[in-house]
C-alpha cells in the first residue's frame, strides 16, 4: 500500500521549482495525449498556451477572465482559512449581477456618472446579503454551510432566469430572454483600446491587497486564521465562532457579488440568463491552487483563465472536442496539485504494522 508521510522540512528551492516541474510534466503528458489523437502535439500546445497571448486582444481577454476568478477566490480564501466552507460563490455572483444590473435598469434613461459606482456598491451588497443567508442558517440552526450555500446557487440562477424571461426582458428585444443593454454610464470603462479589458481588473487587484492586509495585519483576520487552524484554541481564547462564520460569508459574498456586477457591466453589458461560465466554482480551485495566499491566488487566477482561453482556442483552431480540452485541463491541474503534495509529503511503500 502507498502512504503519504509528511516531510520534516520542505525545501524552499523545491517550492519554487514545483510550478516548473508541473509545467514540464503537463507538456510531456500533453505531447502523449495529442500524439495519440493524431494531432500535432507542438501545434496543440502552442495553441493552448501561447496563441491566446500573442495579441493585445488576447492579453486583454486573459486578464478579463481572470478578474471574476480573482475576485471570488480572494474572498473565498478568507473563509477557507477560517474553516468556513462557502461553496456558493457562483450564487452570490449571480445575485450581485442581478442587484447591480437591476440598478442600471431601474435608472434607465436617467443616468449620470454616479450610476456605475452605485451599481458596483449594490452588486457587492447584494452578494453579501445573499452570502449572509447560509451564515445565518449556520449560526442559528447549525445547518451545514456547504449544503446551504450550494443549494442557494440554484435558487439564484432561477431568480435571474425569471427576471430576464419576465419583468426585466428588453421590450425591444424581439422576445429574447435578455435585459436592455446598459447605458454607457452603466458600463465599466475600457482600459485598453481594442480589447474588452475594463476597470474591474484594477478593482480586483486593489481589493486583493486590502484583503491581504486584513488577513495578515488585522486582529480580526488573525481570529479567522486561529479559528481555522485550531478551533479549540479560538474557543479557549474566547473568539466567537459565529462571528468568524458571519465575517467570512460577508466578505466572500461581497467579493463574489462584485465579480458578478463587474462581469455584467464589463464583459457582457446587459443581464442574460447565464452570466458566468462557473467562475464561482472555479474560484474554489483558484483559492486552493494559490494556497489561500493572495499572491498565489493572483497567479492561480491567471493560470485558470489561460486554461479557459486555451481550451476555447483548441476547440476553435484545432477542431478538438470539448472532452479533449477537458482532459488536458484536468491533467494540468493534476500535475500542479500533485507536485505540490509531493513537495510536502513523501510516498512510502508498504504498510506499517499497527496494533489492532
Amino acid at each position, binding site marked *: 500500500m502507498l502512504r503519504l508521510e509528511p516531510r520534516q522540512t520542505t525545501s524552499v528551492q523545491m517550492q519554487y521549482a514545483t510550478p516548473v516541474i508541473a509545467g514540464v510534466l503537463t507538456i510531456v503528458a500533453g505531447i502523449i495525449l495529442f500524439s495519440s489523437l493524431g494531432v500535432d502535439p507542438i501545434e496543440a500546445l502552442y495553441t493552448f498556451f501561447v496563441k491566446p497571448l500573442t495579441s493585445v486582444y488576447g492579453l486583454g481577454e486573459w486578464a478579463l477572465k481572470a478578474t471574476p476568478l480573482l475576485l471570488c477566490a480572494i474572498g473565498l480564501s478568507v473563509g477557507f482559512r477560517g474553516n468556513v466552507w462557502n461553496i456558493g460563490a457562483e450564487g452570490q455572483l449571480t445575485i450581485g449581477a442581478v442587484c447591480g444590473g437591476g440598478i442600471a435598469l431601474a435608472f434607465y434613461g436617467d443616468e449620470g456618472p454616479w450610476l456605475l459606482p452605485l451599481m458596483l456598491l449594490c452588486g457587492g451588497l447584494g452578494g453579501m446579503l445573499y452570502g449572509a443567508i447560509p451564515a445565518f442558517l449556520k449560526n442559528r440552526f447549525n445547518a451545514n454551510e456547504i449544503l446551504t450555500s450550494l443549494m442557494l446557487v440554484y435558487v439564484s440562477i432561477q431568480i435571474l432566469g425569471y427576471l430576464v424571461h419576465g419583468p426585466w426582458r428588453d421590450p425591444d428585444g424581439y422576445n429574447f430572454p435578455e435585459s436592455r443593454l446598459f447605458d454607457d454610464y452603466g458600463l465599466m470603462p475600457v482600459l485598453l483600446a481594442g480589447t474588452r479589458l475594463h476597470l474591474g481588473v484594477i478593482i480586483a487587484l486593489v481589493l486583493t491587497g486590502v484583503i491581504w492586509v486584513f488577513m495578515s495585519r488585522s*486582529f480580526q483576520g488573525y481570529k479567522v486564521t486561529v479559528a481555522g487552524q485550531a478551533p479549540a484554541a479560538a474557543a479557549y481564547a474566547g473568539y466567537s465562532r459565529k462571528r468568524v462564520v458571519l465575517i467570512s460569508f460577508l466578505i466572500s459574498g461581497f467579493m463574489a457579488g462584485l465579480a458578478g456586477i463587474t462581469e455584467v457591466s464589463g464583459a457582457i453589458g446587459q443581464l442574460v440568463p447565464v452570466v458566468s461560465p462557473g467562475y464561482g466554482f472555479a474560484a474554489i480551485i483558484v483559492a486552493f491552487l494559490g494556497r489561500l495566499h493572495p499572491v498565489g491566488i493572483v497567479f492561480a487566477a491567471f493560470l485558470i483563465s489561460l486554461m479557459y482561453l486555451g481550451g476555447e482556442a483548441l476547440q476553435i483552431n484545432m477542431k478538438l472536442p470539448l472532452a479533449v480540452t477537458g482532459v488536458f485541463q484536468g491533467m494540468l491541474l493534476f500535475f500542479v496539485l500533485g507536485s505540490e503534495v509531493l513537495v510536502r509529503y513523501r510516498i512510502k511503500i508498504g504498510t506499517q504494522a499497527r496494533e489492532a
Partner: protein
Amino acid sequence: MATSQLELKGITKRYPGVLANDSIDLSIQPGEVHALLGENGAGKSTLVKIIYGVVRADSGELRWKGEPISITSPNQARSLGIGMVFQHFNLFETLTVAENISLGIDADHDLKVLTSEIREISERYGLPINPHQHVHELSVGERQRVEIIRCLVQDPKLLIMDEPTSVLTPQEIAKLFETLKRLSSEGCSILYISHKLEEIQELCDHATVLRLGKVTATCTPRDETPKSLAEMMIGSELPVCKRTESAYSPDVRLALRGLAITSPDPHGTDLKGIDLEVRKGEVLGIAGVAGNGQKELLATINGEILSPRAEMIELNGEAVATSSPAARRDRGLGFVPEERLGRGAVPEMSLAFNALLTGNQKGMVSDKGFIDFAHMRDYATKVRERFDVRSDGIDAEAKSLSGGNLQKFIIGREIMFGPELLILGHPTWGVDVGAATTIHQAIVDLASGGTAVVVVSEDLDELFEICDSIAVIAEGRLSPIRATSDTDVEEIGRWMSGQFGEEDGADNHVAA
C-alpha cells in the same frame, strides 16, 4: 546465570528526524519485574512497540529464551507469550467482559470454557470481575483488569505494562501491585513502564533508564532514592521548588456557587452543585481520577462552557458564569488549559503569534483593530527569556517545541499578563522533571504575589507539594476542601473513589 526471558541487543530505530532508540541493550530474567524509566520522548514507547511487534527495529537483535527471533506482528508476540496492557484500552463498550477477552484470543476456543477460565484467573490473582458484565458499565480500574485478564488467559511469560497507574486511585494501585507481585512470583516477567518513581521503587527489581533514545543507566531501584532516579532520568541535578510564605488574605477571588452544568459531551461528566472559594494568595488543588468532571470544570470556569445562571461563578465578586472567556479575561482571569497544542497554543503559528492568542486585550492590538507587531514580539521575547523556553527564537512554530517548553511558554504568557486568578489544568502532565520544577516555582511565586491559583491535576505529589488546600472531584461532585497540612494521600485517595458522602451519601455510586 540462567537464560534471560528476553534479551535485546543493540536495538536501533530511526524515525524521520529522530533517533528514537539508539543501540539499546536490555535483558529481563524470568520472574523479574523490570522498570523502563525515562521522560516523555525518551524512547520507551518505541522500544516496547518493537518488543510487541508493532514496530520493527532498523537494526539489533532480539533473543527470546536465548534464541534469536524476529517479531513481526502482535499476533506473533502473543503466541510467543508476550502480553501487553496499553495505556489506552482497546475494549468494545457494548460487549461483555468475556466477549471482549474472547476477541483478543487468536486460537479457537469455547466461550463457556473461557468464562470459567476468566473466573479462575480473577480469583487467583485478586482481579474481581464479572465476565458477563458489559464493559460500558465498568470503572476505569475494572477495565484495566479486563485488559490484564485478557493477557493472562494466554498464559504469558512476559507482561508489558505501559503507564498502568495513571488512571487509578492509590487504593487501586496497591491492588494492582499485589497482582503483579503474585504474577512475578509465579515466574512471569514484567516490563513496567512509568515515570512515577515511588512506584518503581516499590515494585521493580531492576530498572533501565532511557534518555534521548539511549540507555543511560541501569540500577536496582530499591538502592536508589527518588531524587537519584530522577537525576538519572533528566541527566542533571534536580532543581527544587522553594515554598515562600503564602500571602493568604480574606479577599475571595473566585467563588463557585452551586455550579451545575450538563456536559456537552455525551460521554462527559455533568457537574453537580460545586461550591468553592479561592482567596487571594491561595493555591487550591483539585485532585481526582481522570474523567470525573475535571475537563468540564475547567471549561466552565474559563467560559468555553456557559453556565445556566450568572451567579454560579463569581470573579472578584462579579457574576460571570454566562460571560465569554474574553470578558472573564478582562476581569483578571488567566487560564492554562490541559491541552497545549491546539487549545493553549495554535500548532502552526509562531510563538509570537501565540502570544497574541490571549494577549489581544493587553495592548497587542491597536484601537483600529490592527496587530501591534512590535509589542507582540516584545512580549513573546520576554516570556521566552523569563521562563527559559528553549526554542529556535520566537518565530519557531509552537508544534516544534517539546511539551515542557511549550507549557512553560503558555504558563508564562498567562502569568505575565498579571492575572488576579490563574486556573491551570494538569500543568505538568507529560512535562519533564526540570520544566515541572520551573512551573511549580512559577505557580508558588505567583501566589505569594497575591494571585489566587487553582490547580486541577491527577498528580497527588504535585498537589501536595504546591497547594495550600486540596479538594477532590469525583463524578462531578466536589469533596470538602482541606488544608494540605490537615490531610494526607490516604484520605484524598479514598475521596478519589467518590467516598466523601457529605451530602446525600446514598447517591454516591462507588465502584468497589
